[in-house]
């Protein structure tokens, strides 16, 4: 390249701190200068003179570089960070209320420890460059699935569910696997969602694998939550720029066959998994089972219907610690019962706002791989919140789903922090990562 041009570009790049944006800017500016110079040369100007004039046309390189740097620098999503901070503090406050009400202080100290670990996790994932893994998506996806399968098959069990215990902290294996599955699945969608039928079938097969394994755990609800996440990523892939082919037809076929499949799995699970059917009949008529499996539903209903706007409910279930899992799955009911609806509404507003901001942040990511990942994360996070709140309100059968950042427990805490950290990390790099790939926008 001509020295006038390379000097100019070097000065521009000198202002742009993040190297990942350099390659595409270099090519773009190079092309501009060369094309301009070629134009001058066609008017029988010497090469050197032509380039000199073309570069002079461009303007002040340092100023251009400074202005480009403003666009191509890390972006911080402050609203999500602030909301998350508020949620962590509020969550700890609620656990402290629980601890002092039932004289169980160790729970509070442990939760503070989990929050600390969670913040470490979020920092780790925030700075973790997820794009480095894109190349290895396929093998890593299958390795993760396989490890999850091994953990479920050979790991220990607790109440019929797979369970891993490390240094006294127990968790279900899929909590570790799900963030990884989302990361690698984003790579698969990017690679295979191109309109080729064979690739599409591969992608469908690949989606089924981890879902089936999670179902073996057995965790119907996490299988469904992740399933919706993967499906949404898949749908975005089909609607994305790489897809060539009839989008509507593909989506209709996929969604149609999926509805049939989900129905079959639903019937199978209900009839084969212990407490499967019972869970639903209990949900439909809790009073009939009030002494047995319907007990929780009756207690939830009793607490919520006797709660005040502000202050503790008169329900004996609150004063007498009669609500099962009051610090985990049913923390929302505990909040409303012990502090009043005002606090319950505050909780819903905080979680609702962060979900909204997560979706808005995801919509601003242009890089396809990152976008798929963000979409998956948004789904998995918000579905946990929605399912948990619905079951607290008696609007959905009871599942083993914690309320992110409010329920006591380290696994759910770290899991959700990792998810949000990943999303913030993708958002952070949204204007830094520029790739020189040809992706025509087929309309």
């Amino acid at each position, binding site marked *: 390249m001509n020295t006038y041009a390379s000097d100019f570009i070097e000065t521009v790049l000198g202002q742009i701190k993040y190297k990942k944006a350099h390659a595409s800017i270099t090519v*773009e500016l190079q092309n501009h200068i060369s094309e301009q110079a070629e134009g001058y040369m066609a008017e029988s100007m010497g090469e050197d003179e032509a380039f000199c004039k073309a570069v002079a*046309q461009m303007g002040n390189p340092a100023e*251009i570089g400074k202005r480009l740097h403003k666009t191509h620098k890390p972006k911080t999503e402050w609203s999500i960070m602030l909301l998350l901070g508020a949620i962590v503090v509020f969550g700890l406050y609620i656990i402290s209320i629980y601890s002092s009400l039932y004289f169980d202080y160790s729970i509070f100290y442990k939760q503070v420890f989990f929050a600390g670990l969670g913040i470490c996790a979020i920092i780790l994932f925030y700075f973790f460059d997820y794009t480095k893994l894109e190349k290895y998506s396929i093998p890593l996806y299958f390795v993760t699935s396989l490890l999850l399968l091994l953990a479920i098959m050979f790991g220990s069990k607790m109440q019929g569910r797979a369970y891993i215990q490390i240094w006294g902290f127990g968790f279900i294996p899929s909590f570790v696997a799900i963030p990884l599955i989302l990361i690698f699945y984003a790579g698969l969608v990017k690679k295979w969602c191109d309109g080729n039928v064979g690739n599409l079938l591969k992608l469908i097969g690949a989606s089924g694998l981890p879902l089936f394994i999670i179902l073996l755990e057995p965790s119907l609800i996490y299988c469904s939550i992740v399933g919706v996440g993967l499906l949404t990523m898949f749908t975005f892939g089909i609607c994305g*720029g790489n897809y060539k082919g009839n989008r509507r037809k593909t989506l209709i076929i996929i969604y149609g066959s999926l509805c049939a499949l989900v129905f079959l799995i639903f019937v199978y699970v209900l009839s084969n998994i212990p407490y499967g059917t019972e869970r639903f009949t209990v949900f439909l008529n809790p009073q009939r089972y009030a002494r047995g499996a319907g007990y929780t539903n009756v207690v939830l209903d009793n607490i919520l219907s006797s709660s005040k706007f502000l202050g503790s409910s008169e329900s004996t279930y609150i004063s007498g610690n009669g609500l099962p899992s009051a610090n985990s799955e049913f923390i929302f009911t505990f909040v409303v019962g012990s502090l009043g609806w005002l606090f319950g509404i505050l909780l819903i507003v905080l979680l609702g706002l962060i979900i909204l901001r997560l979706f808005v942040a995801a919509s601003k990511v*242009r890089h396809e791989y990152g976008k798929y990942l963000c979409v998956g994360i948004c789904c998995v996070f918000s579905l946990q919140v929605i399912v948990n709140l619905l079951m607290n309100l008696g609007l959905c059968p009871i599942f083993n789903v914690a309320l992110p950042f409010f329920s006591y427990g380290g696994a759910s805490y770290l899991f959700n922090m990792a998810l949000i950290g990943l999303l913030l990390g993708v958002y952070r790099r*949204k204007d830094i990562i520029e790739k*020189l*790939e*040809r992706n025509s926008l087929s309309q």
Partner: protein
Amino acid sequence: MKVDKELLKGSTTMLILKLLDGGDMYGYLMTKELERRSDNTFTLKEGTLYPILHSLESNQMIQAYWENTESARKRKYYTITKGGKKLLLEKEKEWAHYADAIRKVLGGATIEHICI
């Protein structure tokens, strides 16, 4: 006639969006097209186009894609998005209002008078 650079500054975004509204283009082509359509009134320092394009892209007003050319040169084409079209419409309205106001102050009334 050369116009004051400051006059151009505020409206470059609108002009870029307008150009892209007519079809996908790459940077060099845009500067030439701008010169041609304005009878060489708008000769901006060409490099300053790129910071504007990149920031519009980051805000999803336009989208970019790479296209290979015969000369094995890769060109970064830009295309306007729905959001960009909306912004263009707003900017055009704003501009029309502004131009109208200027004209009135500069004695547009007499022109109106003649028209009647």
